[in-house]
C-alpha cells in the first residue's frame, strides 16, 4: 500500500493491516477512505469508549442517554429537553471565525435532528492570555464566528465561560452547547428501521470543504496540519435556518423514520451510523448526490464535511410530501439511496461499485489499549493564589484581581451575542448560571457550562468532581434541581499513558460526584490530541448541566437592595489553588447544602443567592454588587484569616446569600447540622467597605472589572 495515501488519510499502517485482515482482501480506495473516517478517534471513540461505558447515565428523568445525536430528558409530561456540547477545537485553531461558526452550526443540527427547536446556546472558550497577539486574534475570530452564526440562525447565546491560560496557546478550546425543547411526540432517533426505505439528502450541495475533517481532529496539530486550512468547513447560518424550519416541519408531519445530520465524516458517518444502529445495510448512488462543483471524486463526496446537510430515511410513501416541504424552503432534495438488508454499505456510480463493506467492521475499530499510567515527570504550572495576603495590601490585591481577565467582565463577548431572542432569558449573561422561562408554563430551565482545567491538571479526579459540584451549585442557586449533564472532554494525545491516566481519573471523579448529585450524563463528546509541538493543555473536562423545576418568583443572584444581612453559607477554610494542592470537595456536604439552599430560594427566605466558585467570595461579591450598584459593608472579624485571604479562599460548597433580619432565626435553624452560617455584613448603597481596612466605590470596581479584558482589545 502507498504510504503517502495512508498519511493523507491519517490511517496508521497497523490499522491498514487490520482492515486487510478483516476484509480478507485489499480495500478499494473509497473503502479505505470510509475506514479512515470511521476508525478515526473523532468518530469512533476508540481510546475513550471503554471508559465512557462506565459513566453514570441512568435516571428516571432520562429519555435518551449517550449514543443518540443528543441526550433527552423529561421536563413535563408532554415536553422534553434535549442538549449536547461538542468541540470544534482543531478547526478553530487554524481558522477561528469559520471554526467557531461551524462548531455552532454542527451542534445546532444535533439538536433539531432530535425533533427539537434549539432555544439556547452556551460556549466554553479557552485561549492563551490576551496579552498574546495570537490569543487576541483567536478570541476575536471565535467570538465573531459564534456571533455571526448564532445570531443569524436564531439561537440565542445566553451564557458560557471564557478562560485564559498559557497552555491553550497552540490549542485553544472552542466547545459549544445547545439546548432544545420538543413535544414528546416529535422525538426522532437515528435508527434505520425498514429495508426498502428511501434515503433522502437535503440541504447544501456537497463541495470539497472539510475533507478529512474527522481525521484532521484526530492528530496532534503540527506545522503540516496547521497548513490544512482546506480541512476547515465554511458555514452558512441562513441555510441552516431554512434547514431547521424544513426539518421541524417534516418531523411534525411524521414523515421520517430516522434522521441524522451530516457532521464529521459527512455522508459516510451519517449513513453508516443510521444503518448500523438498525443492523441494516444501505446502498448509495453517488450520481444522485447534489454537488457544488464538477469533478469531485467518489472518495471526496463520501468524506466531504460541507456544512448544513442532513440525511433522512423517509417513511414509505411520504417522499412526495417531504419534497414539497423542501421546495417551500427552497432546499436541495435528492433521493440518494435505499436501506437494504445486507448489513453492508454499498456505494455506486451507475454500475461501478466503489465500496461494499460490512457496516459492523466500520463501527468496530481496534481499541486503543494505551494503559492509564501517571507520568510523575509531567509537571503542570498553575497561577498560584497566595494564601496570606497582608492586611495593608488588601485593597491593592483585590483591585489586582479585578484586572485579571479571567475574573473580569466578559461583556465585550456577551454583548456580541443575541441573548434575548425567544423572550425567555431571565438575566443577561455574566452572573454564572443562565435561566430561561418556558412560556405559558411555570417551568424553568437552568443551564451552566463550565470547566476548571487548572484544578484538573493538579488532580484530575478531585478536579472533575469539583467541576460537577460547581455546576450543581450554580443550578441550585436558581432554586432549580440538577437534572442531567453533557460533557466535552478535552485532553491531549491519547497514545500517551499520562493522558489516559488523566482521562480515567476524570471519568471516576465525574461518576463519584454525579451519582451523589443524581445528575446522569446523557450526551457528550471527547476531543483528544489537544496537544501542540511545545505544549499540552490542562486536562479540561467541560460540564454542561441542565437544571429543571418550577418557581413562584424569579431567581435573584445579585444584591437586590440595601440593608439586608449578607452571609456566607458553608465553611471557609484556608484553601487555595496551588501547584501541589487544590481545595477539597466533600460531595455529601455539597449535596446536603444544596438541598437546604434550594429550599431557601423556593421559599423566598433569601433575597439573593449566588454560588461561590472560581475567584472565591471576592468574585461572588463583585458579581452581586454590579448589576444594581448595591454594595456591601463587611464588619466581620476574620480570626485566622487576613481579609483578602478570607475573600480569596476557594473552599467548596459555599453560597453568598442576603436576607432580611427577620429571617435570620429560620435560616440558622434550617442550616443546623448541615453547614455553618457566617454573617459578614450588610448590603449598602454604592460602596464596598471592609471595616477599618478599605473602602471603594462600586463605580471604580465596575470600571476595573469592565476594562480587564477590553483594555487588551482596543
Amino acid at each position, binding site marked *: 500500500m502507498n504510504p503517502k495515501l495512508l498519511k493523507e488519510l491519517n490511517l496508521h499502517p497497523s490499522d491498514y493491516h487490520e482492515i486487510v485482515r478483516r476484509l480478507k482482501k485489499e480495500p478499494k480506495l473509497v473503502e479505505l477512505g470510509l475506514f479512515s473516517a470511521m476508525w478515526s478517534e473523532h468518530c469512533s471513540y476508540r481510546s475513550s469508549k471503554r471508559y465512557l461505558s462506565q459513566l453514570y447515565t441512568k435516571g428516571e428523568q432520562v429519555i435518551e442517554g449517550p449514543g443518540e445525536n443528543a441526550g433527552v430528558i423529561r421536563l413535563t409530561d408532554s415536553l422534553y429537553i434535549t442538549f449536547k456540547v461538542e468541540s470544534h477545537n482543531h478547526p478553530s485553531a487554524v481558522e477561528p471565525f469559520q471554526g467557531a461558526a461551524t462548531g455552532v452550526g454542527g451542534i445546532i443540527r444535533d439538536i433539531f435532528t432530535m425533533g427539537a427547536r434549539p432555544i439556547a446556546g452556551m460556549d466554553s472558550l479557552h485561549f492563551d492570555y490576551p496579552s498574546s497577539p495570537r490569543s487576541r486574534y483567536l478570541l476575536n475570530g471565535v467570538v465573531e464566528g459564534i456571533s455571526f452564526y448564532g445570531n443569524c440562525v436564531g439561537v440565542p447565546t445566553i451564557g458560557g465561560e471564557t478562560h485564559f491560560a498559557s497552555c491553550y496557546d497552540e490549542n485553544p478550546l472552542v466547545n459549544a452547547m445547545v439546548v432544545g425543547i420538543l413535544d414528546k411526540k416529535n422525538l426522532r432517533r437515528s435508527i434505520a428501521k425498514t429495508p426498502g426505505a428511501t434515503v433522502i439528502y437535503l440541504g447544501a450541495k456537497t463541495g470539497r470543504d472539510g475533507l478529512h475533517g474527522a481525521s484532521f481532529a484526530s492528530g496532534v496539530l503540527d506545522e503540516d496540519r496547521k497548513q490544512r486550512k482546506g480541512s476547515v468547513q465554511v458555514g452558512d447560518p441562513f441555510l441552516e435556518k431554512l434547514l431547521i424550519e424544513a426539518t421541524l416541519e417534516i418531523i411534525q408531519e411524521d414523515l421520517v423514520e430516522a434522521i441524522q445530520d451530516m457532521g464529521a465524516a459527512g455522508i459516510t458517518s451519517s449513513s453508516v451510523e443510521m444503518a448500523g444502529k438498525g443492523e441494516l445495510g444501505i446502498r448509495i448512488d453517488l450520481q444522485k448526490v447534489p454537488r457544488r462543483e464538477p469533478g469531485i471524486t467518489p472518495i471526496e463526496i463520501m468524506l466531504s464535511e460541507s456544512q448544513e446537510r442532513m440525511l433522512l430515511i423517509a417513511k414509505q410513501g411520504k417522499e412526495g410530501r417531504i419534497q414539497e416541504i423542501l421546495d417551500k424552503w427552497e432546499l436541495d432534495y435528492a433521493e440518494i439511496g435505499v436501506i437494504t438488508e445486507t448489513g453492508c454499505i454499498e456505494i455506486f456510480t451507475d454500475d461501478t461499485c466503489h465500496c461494499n463493506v460490512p457496516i459492523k467492521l466500520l463501527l468496530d475499530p481496534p481499541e486503543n489499549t494505551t494503559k492509564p499510567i501517571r507520568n510523575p515527570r509531567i509537571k503542570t504550572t498553575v497561577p498560584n493564589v497566595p494564601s496570606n495576603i497582608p492586611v495593608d495590601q488588601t485593597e491593592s490585591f483585590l483591585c489586582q484581581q479585578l484586572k485579571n481577565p479571567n475574573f473580569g467582565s466578559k461583556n465585550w463577548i456577551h454583548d456580541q*451575542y443575541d441573548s434575548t431572542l425567544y423572550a425567555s432569558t431571565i438575566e443577561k449573561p455574566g452572573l454564572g448560571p443562565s435561566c430561561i422561562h418556558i412560556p405559558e408554563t411555570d417551568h424553568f430551565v437552568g443551564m451552566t457550562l463550565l470547566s476548571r482545567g487548572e484544578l484538573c491538571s493538579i488532580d484530575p479526579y478531585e478536579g472533575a468532581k469539583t467541576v460537577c459540584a460547581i455546576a450543581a451549585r450554580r443550578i441550585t442557586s436558581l432554586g432549580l434541581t440538577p437534572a442531567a449533564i453533557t460533557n466535552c472532554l478535552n485532553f491531549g494525545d491519547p497514545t500517551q499513558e499520562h493522558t489516559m491516566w488523566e482521562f480515567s481519573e476524570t471519568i471516576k471523579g465525574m461518576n463519584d460526584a454525579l451519582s451523589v448529585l443524581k445528575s446522569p450524563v446523557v450526551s457528550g463528546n471527547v476531543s483528544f490530541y489537544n496537544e501542540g509541538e511545545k505544549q499540552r493543555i490542562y486536562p479540561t473536562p467541560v460540564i454542561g448541566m441542565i437544571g429543571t423545576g418550577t418557581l413562584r418568583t424569579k431567581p435573584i443572584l445579585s444584591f437586590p437592595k440595601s440593608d439586608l444581612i449578607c452571609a456566607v453559607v458553608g465553611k471557609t477554610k484556608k484553601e487555595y489553588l496551588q501547584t501541589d494542592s487544590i481545595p477539597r470537595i466533600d460531595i455529601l456536604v455539597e449535596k446536603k447544602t444544596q438541598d437546604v439552599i434550594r429550599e431557601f430560594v423556593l421559599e423566598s427566605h433569601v433575597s439573593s443567592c449566588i454560588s461561590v466558585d472560581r475567584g472565591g467570595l471576592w468574585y461572588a461579591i463583585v458579581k452581586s454588587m454590579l448589576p444594581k450598584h448595591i454594595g456591601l459593608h463587611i464588619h466581620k472579624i476574620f480570626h485566622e484569616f487576613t481579609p483578602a485571604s478570607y475573600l480569596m479562599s476557594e473552599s467548596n460548597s459555599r453560597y453568598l446569600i442576603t436576607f432580611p433580619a427577620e429571617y435570620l432565626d429560620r435560616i440558622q435553624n434550617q442550616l443546623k447540622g448541615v453547614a455553618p452560617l457566617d454573617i459578614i455584613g450588610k448590603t449598602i448603597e454604592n460602596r464596598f467597605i471592609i471595616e477599618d481596612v478599605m473602602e471603594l466605590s462600586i463605580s471604580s470596581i465596575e470600571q476595573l472589572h469592565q476594562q480587564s479584558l477590553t483594555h487588551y482589545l482596543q
Partner: protein
Amino acid sequence: MLRVGVVIFPGSNCDLDAIRAVEIGLRAKAVPLWHKDATIDTDAIILPGGFSYGDYLRPGSIASHSPIMQAVKRFAVNGGPVIGICNGFQILTESGLLPGTLLRNTTTRFISQDISLLVTSNQTPFTKHFAMGQRITLPIAHKDGNYQADPATLHTLQENHQIVFQYTDNPNGSHWDIAGISNKEHNVVGLMPHPERALSDWIRTSDGLQVFQSLLAHLEAQP
C-alpha cells in the same frame, strides 16, 4: 376577533416571538403571512426581526422586493397599521415606506443589550398608551442599527412628530439618537429595539407590552 399578520421571510427569526406578542399583548389572532403571499387580510401587520434572506446584499434589501411587500405597501397606503422591528425596520427603509437608512453600528460589532429609550411621539397606533417622554427599557440585538438621514429629512421627522423612540445612551451611532420613527401619517412605525421580547415580568423588562396594548386600543377604536 382582531387579526394581526406576522410576515415570515426565509431567515426571519423573531416571528415566533411576534406571534406570541400578538396572542399575549393583543389577545388577537396571529396570522402568519408567507413572503410569497400577494394579498393581506388582517387588521395590522408586523414585520419581525431576523436575517431575511441571510442579509445578503444589505439587510432588508432582498425582502423589500418580495411579493408580500407589494401587499404591505398597499396596506400601508390605505392607512393600515404596520410595525417593523429590527430587520423589519430595515425592510421598511429599504422599501421606501420609511425615510432614511440603517448602516453598520459605529462599533462595527453586533450589540445585544437592554437599553433605555424615551418615547418621543405617542401619535402612532403603537405608542398611544405611552406618556410623552416616558422612559422605557427594551432589548436591542443588531449589527446594522445606525440610523442615518440627511438634515432636511431629520428636521421634517422632528416637525411631524415622526421620531418615535430615542436612545438615552446612543449605542450604535444613530443620528439624533433615533431608535424608531414613523411615516408622516404615523401608521407605519419602524424601530430597532425589540418590544416583542419584553412582555413578561419573569424576564428583565415587560415594557414592550404597552406597544401591543396601544395597538389593541387603536384597533378597537376603529369603526
